[in-house]
C-alpha cells in the first residue's frame, strides 16, 4: 500500500481546505466526541429542519484522515433528509469495516477515497470519528 493510495488527492484537498468548518448560531444538535487513542476531538453542529439536515458545521483537531472525513461528511449530509443521512452513515461504517460489495459504496461519492484507510486499523477510528459524532448526535431524532 503506497502513501499515494492512502492519502488520495481528494483527501489531501479536503484536509488542506476543509468545508463547513465553524459553528452554527443556534444548532439543534451540538455534540463533541474524542478519539481515546490519540486525543483528537470533534465538535459537530447540526440544524435539523423539516426532517432534513439543513445545515452542518464542525470544528476539531485531528489528522488528515479525520479532518478530510469530517469535511467530506458535511458535504454528504448537507440538505439530506435525516433517514438518508443516517443511511449514509451506516453505509460509510460498513465500508470501513470492509463489508461493502464492489460499487456498493459508490453513492457516497468522493469519500470512498477513504476506503484505503481500512489497511491501517488504528486509523479507521480517525475516519469514523465525525460519523460517530453524527450518529450519536441524532440518536433518537427522526
Amino acid at each position, binding site marked *: 500500500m503506497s502513501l499515494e493510495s492512502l492519502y488520495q488527492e481528494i483527501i489531501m484537498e479536503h484536509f488542506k481546505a476543509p468545508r463547513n468548518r465553524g459553528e452554527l448560531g443556534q444548532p439543534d444538535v451540538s455534540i463533541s466526541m*474524542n478519539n*481515546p*487513542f490519540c*486525543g483528537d476531538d470533534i465538535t459537530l453542529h447540526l440544524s435539523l429542519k423539516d426532517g432534513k439536515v439543513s445545515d452542518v458545521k464542525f470544528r476539531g483537531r485531528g489528522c488528515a484522515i479525520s479532518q478530510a472525513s469530517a469535511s467530506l461528511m458535511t458535504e454528504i449530509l448537507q440538505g439530506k433528509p435525516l433517514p438518508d443521512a443516517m443511511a449514509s452513515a451506516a453505509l460509510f461504517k460498513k465500508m470501513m469495516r470492509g463489508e461493502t460489495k464492489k460499487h456498493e459504496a459508490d453513492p457516497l461519492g468522493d469519500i470512498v477515497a477513504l476506503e484505503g484507510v481500512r489497511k*491501517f*486499523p*488504528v*486509523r479507521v477510528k480517525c475516519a469514523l470519528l465525525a460519523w460517530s459524532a453524527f450518529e450519536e448526535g441524532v440518536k433518537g431524532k427522526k
Partner: protein
Amino acid sequence: MALDPSRLRAEFPILSRRIGDRPLVYLDTAATSQKPRAVIDAMTRYYEQMNANVHRGAYRLSEEATAMYEGVREKVARFLGAPGPEGVVFVRNTTEAINLVAHAWGRKFLKAGDEVLLTEMEHHSNLVPWHLLAKERGVVLRHIPITDDGRLDLSRLDALLGSRTKLVSLVHVSNVLGTVNPVEDVVRAAHRVGALCLVDGAQAVPHRPVDLAAIGCDFYAFSAHKMYGPTGIGVLWARPEILAGMDPFMVGGETILEVRLDRSTFREAPYRFEPGTPAVAEAAGLGAAIDWLTALGLDAVEAHETALVDHAWRRLAEVPGIRMYGPSSGPRAGAVCFTTDPIHPHDLATCLDQDGLAVRAGHHCAQPLMTRLGTVATARASFGVYTLPSEIDLLVDSILRTREFFGCR
C-alpha cells in the same frame, strides 16, 4: 478419535526430564499443566517477530500484535461457546478473575444482608474474596454442603436460595475431589431467584468441552496455565451487559476514554478492565493452547482422562489402608485425592519424589473442604492429556514401597 498419549508426550519437552536417575512422572497437572512445544513456540515467535505494545501503535508491528491479541479474544469466545469477544476480559489467573467480580460487581451491587451462596468444596480463590466483601459490606455468605461422597448436596439448594441471594459462585470441577458439578442446574436455580451465577472453571476447561451457552452462567473464570497455556494470563468471561454495568477496578493506561488532571472517563468493557500493558505474549500462548486443545478434541481429552481417573480409583483401591475422597463413580475429572494412614501425605510426597513422581500433598487451597472431609491434608494425583495408565501403576508401586519403608503394609 482417541488420544495417542505416547505420541502426544513427544510434544512436551519437559517429559523427557529425569529426576535423579528416574524419568519424571508428572502427576500434578491440576496445580499447573505442562506445555506443548506449540505453546512455547507461539510465544517465542511472538517475541521474535511481532512484539509491540497493543492498541495504540500506528505502525505495522503494533497492528499485527493488536490483531493477534484481539484475535485470541475471539478465539476464547468461540472456545467457550460465548456469543462474542466483548465478554472476554484478560486477567492474570482465575484468582484475579474472581477478585475482579468481587470488586467491580460485588462492591457496586451488594449491600449488607445480601447473600452470596458458595459451596463447601471451593478453592480458597472462590472463598477469600467473598470473606473480604462480607467483612467490608456485611454481605452474608452461605454454603451448599456436600455429601459424604463429595458431591454437592443439591437437596439443600432451594432452602439456601432466596430473594436475598444475589450471587451463586461455585466450582465447575473440584480440584480436590474431581467432582464435576451440575452447574447448569445450579445456574437455573440461581436465576429463578434472580441471582447471578459465577462458575470457577479452572479445572474444567483443561479437561472437558465447556459450552457457556448451555451452562447459562453469568461469569466464568479460568487460568491458561492449567490448560497447557502459559502462566501470567487467564480469563474472566462475563455477560457483556453485566460487564458494561460494572465499576472500573484497576485503572490506568488502556482503561480510559479521557483523562484530565483531576478526573477521568472510562472506556467500554472489556478494555475498561485491562489496566496497563497486557500480557500480550501470554495471549499468543493462550491462543496456541486453545488451538492445540481444539485440534486434539475436548471429547477425546475427556474420554482419555475419565479412563485415567477410573484406572486410578481401581488401582489405588489395592493399597492397604488407603482412603479415597470424592465420588466413587462419574462424572469425575482430572484428579484423585487419597490418604494412606499412618503415612502423612507430606511424607508420602517426599518419598514418591525419590521415585521421580510429582504429586501434591496438603490442603490444595481448600481448607474448609479438608475440614469437611475430616482431615488436614491429602495426597493428590492429577492428570492431563499426556498421562499414561502406566504412570498410575508406578504411583501405586511407589506408594506400596513407601508403606514398606514406613513399616506398614
